[in-house]
């Protein structure tokens, strides 16, 4: 570790900008996780694998000669039905069970997806080239690929659309009602089964958007799913359920942290530092709460 950060302020600016643009993307995935956690009380370990699957959809469009940015529109549609399928097959059997059961079941789905993607798409690291070029700032000391800016803007647009949808539409109201009290919602005529399926589908669709953006901006690989799950979990526990500005902020914070860890410790410790940060955050919260003789619930 050296004092690069202080000697070259441009690197700091670069890392911050990269981190913020990346963090917006993380926040989008985390929003999906918060949604299903809040509504269905499920922690989905397969979240990251849904993201990667969404990324492969965009990548295949790129291979067939369609511009991968259209993946942002196509991928959520396909992923919505993938999500509904997973819900009908597995998730509906674990919804009202112990949380650990859902963690383990989705862990199984995650392994399954990982391996099926490995068979179907090969174990190579791939990316879809968007051909957007780059933006240079500060006498070309700071280099920002336009694809990153594009992905951040698209994420924000999708997040805003989703928030409006949740506020205004009938389904959105049903989802929020179920999150507050599933039993009361049921009594008042909400088909909770349908709401759960829709929630999981929307979550998968969000993952699809994020995956398509990741395939444009970064690289995708069948085994890269778990870090995205952990990142979104971390963002959710820092921000809390249903706190959208918090999710966005902590997503950006995580992005910046990751970029700095990358610069300072080296790329080989990047994923490790993310997981370690999760442990540290949980332990910090635990000590903070234990002063009041409470614990994380």
């Amino acid at each position, binding site marked *: 570790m050296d004092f690069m950060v202080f000697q070259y302020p441009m690197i700091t600016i670069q890392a911050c900008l990269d981190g913020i643009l990346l963090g917006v993307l993380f926040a989008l995935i985390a929003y999906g996780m918060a949604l299903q956690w809040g509504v269905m009380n499920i922690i989905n370990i397969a979240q990251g694998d849904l993201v990667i699957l969404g990324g492969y959809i965009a990548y295949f469009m790129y291979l067939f000669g369609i511009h991968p940015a259209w993946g942002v529109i196509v991928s959520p549609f396909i992923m919505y039905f993938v999500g509904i399928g997973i819900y009908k097959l*597995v998730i509906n059997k674990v919804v009202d*069970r112990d949380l650990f059961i859902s963690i383990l079941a989705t862990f199984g789905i995650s392994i399954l997806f990982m*391996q099926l993607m490995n068979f179907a798409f090969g174990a190579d690291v791939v990316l879809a080239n968007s051909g957007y070029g780059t933006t240079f700032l500060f006498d070309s000391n700071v280099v920002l690929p336009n694809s990153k800016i594009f992905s951040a803007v698209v994420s924000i647009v999708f997040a805003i659309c989703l928030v409006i949808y949740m506020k205004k539409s009938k389904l959105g109201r049903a989802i929020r009602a179920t999150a507050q009290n599933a039993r009361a919602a049921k009594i008042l005529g909400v088909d909770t089964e349908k709401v759960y399926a829709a929630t999981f589908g929307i979550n998968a669709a969000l993952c699809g958007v994020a995956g398509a953006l990741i395939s444009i901006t970064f690289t995708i690989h069948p085994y890269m799913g778990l870090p995205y799950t952990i990142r979104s979990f971390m963002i959710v526990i820092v921000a809390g359920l249903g706190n959208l500005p918090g999710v966005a902020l902590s997503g950006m914070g995580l992005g910046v942290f990751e970029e700095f860890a990358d610069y300072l410790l080296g790329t080989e410790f990047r994923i490790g530092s993310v997981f370690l940060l999760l442990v540290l955050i949980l332990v910090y919260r635990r000590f903070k709460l234990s002063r009041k003789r409470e614990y994380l619930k």
Partner: protein
Amino acid sequence: MNKNIILYAVILIFGLAAPFIFPAFKVQLSILCVLIILAVTWNIQGGEMGYNSFGNILFYGLGMYLCASVQVGMFFPLAEWTESGGEKTFVHTPTQFFQGMAVGLLVAAVVPTIVAGLIGYSILGLRGHYFAICTLGLGVAAGEISGGIEIIGAGQGFTTPPFPNVGGLEARGEFFYFCSFFALVIAFVTIRAIYSTRFKLILNAIRDNEDKAEAMGIETMKYKIIGWMVSAFFCGLAGGIMGGLVGYIDSTDVAFDGREMGVFMVLMAILGGKGTLWGPIIGATVFHIFKEGFWTFFLGWQYVALGVLIVVIVIYFPEGIMGWLREKYPERFGEVVDEADRKAQVELK
């Protein structure tokens, strides 16, 4: 009681004779012993204490690295050994190998125990799924970080000292089999002993309602940490043996293999029935046979099968084999069954 002694004696004799009865399966049997140790020790957390840990793999991997490092480092410079990769620039004499292995296994068992004691206070304060995710993070973080440390081979892996040239392949298999078998016997005896004391009741009290247990005046944290330390001791030991058996340590694929071993131990305990003494043992045996069958006949599709297996077990079989037996034959488990009540239940179904 008498019946039990005969049963244990039969199992012990069978265990001692197994490598000679099935000489072709020595390595498989040693792996089975390691798997049983992992399942049984996971059961202390997941089954008895209600703390579903994905992080016992941390101690397993730690033990693996420690055993190999000590075994090499006692006689040769460690950095040069790992740098040379698989090439045998240094060769252990038989005495050096066995001495190194003995000290290595001791270190591999003791250091994870201390680590568990040190981190236990912070980690075990988390509950439920936070504990599960936190330990999952711990395991993966350890894998990623150890993959970046040069002295233990970083990304290219660590070749453990090859077995010295005494007795050839047969002797190697028997040595590792008896190592793992004795580790298993020690683990089983220890765990059976602590399960017959008040300790197990305290763990069960923690599982059923931790707040009430605390209110009853039990220092739950102390017992949780002790439970974790027992697990860590045997996980480290198992890891050390497994490292020598596999002969090659990779940070994410062999040592801190959360995707495989870390899930296996959970799965085995659940398959057999968590919260029972024999459940994890039965589960591990069934799982190992099933897994080897799959690995042989469906090569390449094994992880797909594993994923499906996890989902199926968790959804349709969460009580495990022991739980199923218990429901079927409650009398065998010392439960008094009211005939009329049972009939009524059957009619209700």
